[in-house]
């Protein structure tokens, strides 16, 4: 049974975010990767790009499906996980850890309040 870390916030679009001061790390949930199946490609923005809560900022692809990734919070992209360009399978293996997507500088930290807790997210996906 997958564990959804308590220190992350979640969205109904199956992203997670970890907040550390003014920065945040964003990824997709274990549930999202398992629904997609074998992930073959991850499309992410460049550092410096701004992302806006609720808007798509990238996509994750399996062989026969594409899933948009929505920003759980707004901010400016500080770092992109380069590992995923060459090893997209990491997203299947460790979605809540090593296979984070982007790190951002928060521009509206209050947005966090609108997100789900681990318990609520698990209830939402019926886990």
């Amino acid at each position: 049974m997958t564990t959804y870390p308590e220190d992350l916030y979640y969205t109904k679009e199956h992203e997670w975010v970890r907040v550390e001061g003014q920065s945040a790390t964003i990824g997709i949930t274990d549930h999202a990767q398992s629904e997609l199946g074998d992930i073959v490609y991850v499309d992410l923005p460049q550092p410096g790009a701004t992302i806006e809560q609720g808007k798509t900022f990238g996509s994750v692809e399996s062989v026969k499906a594409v899933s948009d990734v929505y920003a759980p919070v707004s901010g400016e992209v500080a770092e992109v996980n380069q590992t995923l360009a060459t090893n997209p399978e990491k997203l299947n293996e460790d979605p809540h850890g090593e296979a984070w997507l982007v790190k951002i500088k928060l521009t509206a930290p209050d947005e966090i309040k609108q997100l789900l807790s681990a318990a609520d997210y698990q209830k939402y996906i019926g886990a």
Partner: protein
Amino acid sequence: MLDAIGAESLESLFSHLPEDVRLARPLNIAAGKSEYEIVDYFRARGGETANGYASFLGAGVYSHYRPVMVDTVVSRGEFLTSYTPYQAEISQGILTTIFEFQTMICQLTGMDVANASMYDGSTAVPEAAMMAARVTGRDRVLVSRAVHPEYREVLATYASRQGMPVEEIAYDAATGSVDLEDLERKLDTKTAAVIIQSPNFFGAVENVKKAAALAHAKGALLVYVFAEAVSLGLLEPPRDADIVVGELQSFAITPSYGGPFAGIIAAKEKFLRQMPGRLVGESKDVNGNRAFCLTLSTREQHIRREKATSNICTNQALVALMATVFMSVYGKQGLRELAQQNLSKAHYLASKLPVRFSGPFFNEFVVKPGRRTPAEVNGELLGKKIIGGLDLERFYPELKGSVLVCCTEMVTRSQMDEVARAFGAGE
């Protein structure tokens, strides 16, 4: 079968269609004909065309010899009557040929990746422009006026609905190749693509390096277009271009009154994700054997729907197979020798005629206006069962009286001498 499904008659299968939707009368199309009558009908229609004429028409459609092997291969029902190879396990035949096709297109063009084919050269041009727009995030397109006029018309149709402004770059009135100064003037930081054709519509070989340097200096992509694929047997491949599109009609595809042909699109590896159309990739099967399959399909309409890189679905697989067989038959030496023959023939005829432009040319060139009009020259040639060149006034009013002449390996010295005479050479 009707009993099995509990239907009274064939008609009853349609009884759920509302009465006012059904056609109450027979179609007004004559009753079915026998095989012999059909063959006879089309023979008669074929007889109402230029049967048995030598041709000096090029302008995007070239008469090259078709090796017998081409029809032998594409007539095999396993190729002819199969569908798009979605089921890889029982489609390795066509998948392997497409992989070979993609490889040969890369070898010919100097690009890293090529797709399985486009409809034709003309529709590949706007696809390349839209691809450049996706890559650069810009929308303006510069296209050389020496790109095939009908390709430019197709580009205009597509671009206007995409909100992409298209501007033309002049050709150099002396050389017939793209006016690089005009290009430099018109390039700006909104330009997504610079589109040039080589050999261009006048047959002139373009300076790809310089055009690419100018485009790249402004962050635009260079799109190289070719209409005469045989030229790639001798011409330096356009390695400095970012996207190459072209028409493979010259590779054993009959002129067929304009289609079906096969287009290509090839590009630098880094633009792969923005390519339209189908791609075949190498992989392995469960037994560890080499196997091929359609890949990177998430770019395509059946998955990404309104966000797809293009709406293209059906392409030109069988026609691309003709080109693949052609390239296999001629091979490394043959394509060069074929190109060499085209070059030599065109230069033989050009040496007897006043040539309009000074730029280097491959197998096509423009003849200056002379004492006789193009109609008079071509009229005389028709009497000798020769179709003369293209009267350029139709596409370039400023070149009134000039004629675009093409010489492939299919024309003989004596036919070329006839053409020279008709133009009044030696008078």
